[in-house]
């Protein structure tokens, strides 16, 4: 206990250098611009954007906001998938990027939630009415509940539990953040039981998160894929391709962030080429699958000819969206070639992998745009004239501001918590919990509490879902109202309680001997 194990907190935590402040100020300024643009939109309404009505007005009702919302949710894919895969498949090589990836997931989900609110015409009403009236029949229900509450919350719980050991380590060093770390560690003693318990919960949590992830990204694809009135959207391929494109953009952005942090925090020895090799290979495989989807989609739409899908593809390949479409496709191909070439030659370069990641992200953003917009401007089922959509400075500034906000959140995250697992076994150990207190493994009470939390969470979620989803024909006015108001809120709370159950399992206090009990009695 007497030997100070670390002079400073690891990975620059708590050391706010000048460079960091400069970047933070720039990011805050851009966020401020974004806020200003949003204030314009609040005053003028969505008229401040380039959006317009589909049909006679020749516009696009959904534009960049929706495209970027989809993009932000997509990026969140990387973090939690990689963290979960490390847990489930023991991918030791990727362990150093697990925490960075979890951070990316959480930040991007926050941005996605904000993007949805920004897109609403009545943002204040939206927050209340969604909790009050949200209907499971709407694909948006999945976005609001699964993605933004369940997914975000599960990621937070995962990050929290995985970080407790490091928090306990950091809490040993005196400093401004000590209290925060102590709170995070929440009495973590690093005993054998605690470690085993954590391994167990993390494994199950990872197993739970993976299907949640596929469901969440599929729901997002379903927003588009199940609308028969929009040619170009209505496709069974939409949901799986959203999952894959989410992977492309997420892994791509993770590569970029890892490369930046590697330089900024001087982690060259810890983040070696092997990490980039793994991520890069992951990226090219996903990109190849996505290119395959594009080809299948193209052939299906164009083979018969004369269909409305062919009109959309005409606009894409040879019309007003041609430049964006071909730019997107060529960036996908370039990213794929860059990575596949390295794979085939078995020689990897960090710079090239990073470039492939950047390209994949620009391609993903472009692809989101050409999914969302042309089906509205050129995909009307009745012979309206083709429309146009040009985003205004308000939209662009708000989106830029969101990116800056994301960067700001992320760099704050790197300064308050180690971006990599701290312990390396030799000299970094948490002080073993005092054995004198006679720690008793209070197994049964712990398990009982866990099961109670889990079951009450599931019960609440099921009840909330059934109360929110009146079963009956559309013509019944019941169909539009939940059986009781705020049933969706019950559903969301149920999901959150369910996800909290592993926290209960891990944090349930051990009995500290009989002393306390005696005092109480």
């Amino acid at each position, binding site marked *: 206990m007497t030997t100070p194990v670390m002079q400073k907190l690891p990975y620059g935590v708590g050391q706010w250098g000048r460079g960091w402040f400069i970047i933070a100020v720039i990011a805050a300024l851009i966020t401020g611009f974004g806020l200003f643009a949003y204030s314009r939109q609040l005053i003028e309404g969505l*008229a401040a954007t380039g959006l317009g009505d589909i049909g006679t*007005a020749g516009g696009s009702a959904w534009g960049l906001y929706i495209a970027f919302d989809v993009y932000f949710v997509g990026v969140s894919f990387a973090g939690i998938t990689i963290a979960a895969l490390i847990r489930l498949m023991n991918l030791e090589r990727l362990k150093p990027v697990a925490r960075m990836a979890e951070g990316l997931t959480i930040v991007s989900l926050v941005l996605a939630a904000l993007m949805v609110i920004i897109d609403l015409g009545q943002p204040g009403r939206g927050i209340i*009415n969604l909790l009050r009236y949200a209907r*499971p029949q709407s694909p948006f229900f999945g976005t609001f509940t699964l993605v933004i509450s369940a997914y975000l919350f599960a990621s937070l719980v995962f990050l929290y539990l995985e970080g407790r050991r490091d928090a306990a380590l950091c809490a040993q060093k005196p400093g401004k953040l000590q209290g925060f770390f102590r709170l995070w560690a929440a009495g973590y003693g690093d005993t054998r039981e605690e470690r085993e318990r954590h391994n167990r919960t993390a494994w199950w949590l990872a197993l739970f998160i993976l299907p949640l992830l596929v469901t969440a990204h599929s729901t997002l694809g379903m927003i588009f894929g199940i609308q028969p*009135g929009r040619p170009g959207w209505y496709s069974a391929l939409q949901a799986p391709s959203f999952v894959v494109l989410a992977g492309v953009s997420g892994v791509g952005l993770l590569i970029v962030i890892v490369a930046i942090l590697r330089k900024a925090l001087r982690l060259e020895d810890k983040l070696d080429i092997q990490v980039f090799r793994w991520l890069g290979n992951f990226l090219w495989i996903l990109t190849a699958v996505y290119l395959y989807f594009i080809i299948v989609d193209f052939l299906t739409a164009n083979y018969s000819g004369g269909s409305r899908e062919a009109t959309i593809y005409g606009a894409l390949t040879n019309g007003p969206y041609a430049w964006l479409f071909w730019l997107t496709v060529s960036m996908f191909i370039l990213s794929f070639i860059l990575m596949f070439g390295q794979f085939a030659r078995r020689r990897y370069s960090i710079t090239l992998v990073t470039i492939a990641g950047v390209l994949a992200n620009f391609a993903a953003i472009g692809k989101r745009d050409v999914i969302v917009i042309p089906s509205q401007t050129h995909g009307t089922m009745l012979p309206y004239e083709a429309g146009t959509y040009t985003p205004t400075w308000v939209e662009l500034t708000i989106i830029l501001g969101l990116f800056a906000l994301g960067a700001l959140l992320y760099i704050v995250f790197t300064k308050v918590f180690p971006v990599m697992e701290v312990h390396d*076994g030799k000299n970094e150990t948490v002080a073993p919990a005092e054995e004198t207190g006679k720690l008793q493994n209070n197994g049964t009470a712990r398990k009982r509490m866990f099961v109670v939390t889990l079951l009450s969470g599931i019960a609440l979620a099921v009840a909330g879902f*059934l109360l929110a*989803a009146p079963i009956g024909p559309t013509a019944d006015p019941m169909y539009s109202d939940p059986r009781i108001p705020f049933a969706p809120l019950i559903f969301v709370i149920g999901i959150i309680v369910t996800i909290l159950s592993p926290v209960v399992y891990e944090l349930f206090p051990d009995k500290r001997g009989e002393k306390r009990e005696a005092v109480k009695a």
Partner: protein
Amino acid sequence: MTEVARKQTEIPERKISRRDFMKKGGAAVALSAAGLVVGSRVFASPKEEPAAATGVKYAMVIDLDRCFGCRACMEACKVENNTPEGVFWMYVFRFEEGRYPNVKLSYMPRPCQHCDNAPCVKPCPVGARYKRADGLVATDWKRCIGCRYCEVACPYSVNYFNWGEQTKRQYLDWKAPEAESVRQVTGGTVPPYKNPDLAGAFKPENRYIAGGSHQKGVMGKCTFCVHRLDKGLLPACVANCPVQVYHFGNINDPESEVSKILRSKRAWRLLDELGTRPSVYYIGSVPPTPEFRQIEAVKGRTL
């Protein structure tokens, strides 16, 4: 990386007895079957209405052989519903087909189709867009959150969003000085005109579905003039058509005008192949094909 008890705990190989397997497997199968049943009920499309349904169910029959594209219905709709500039809850297509000199003209009014299986009702996240028992597809403008999902879901493109604060109605700026003078002369009854019936709640659900004052950030569309139906009047477009293109009535009543026409003439519904089952029927002429070109398209700036 050195070993810090981060190793996965060794998983002992466990034998699963047959009884255990049957129990757990059976439970899993039962659970997923229950999930499928509930899911299919929640997300099911409404069944076709039974033939002998009771109560009023409104339907519109549009006789395209009579329509000559004067667009009086569009004008009537705008006056009645105070729709903002560039917004056409009722729209009349003027089509041209073929090549000069063998050109054919045709006209097709396009109100909201008030579908029985409305693509816009299903995805509304808050139930602001809903289907009434009398067949109307209504928009509760006090509940709408402005996500515009109904608009992208509608194959007919009949939705008009209130993108901004409405200052112009009836092509006259409400805040302009000349509007003030008109208001003084007419005592506020003629343009700039505001229909007071649009603001209220409507039975039986007591919801605000007549469009109100076109509040910023909510969706609007044809209401079949629910405020007029409430008083026993016909929708404005029906009442104002000079050549009686429109027939409107209760399709559940076999003696109503619409039922009689639909029995005697061959009718079609717009984009019926999508399974939307509209309440608007067309007789005469043919559905528009992709070869139809629009002439004199009305294109307005939506504020």
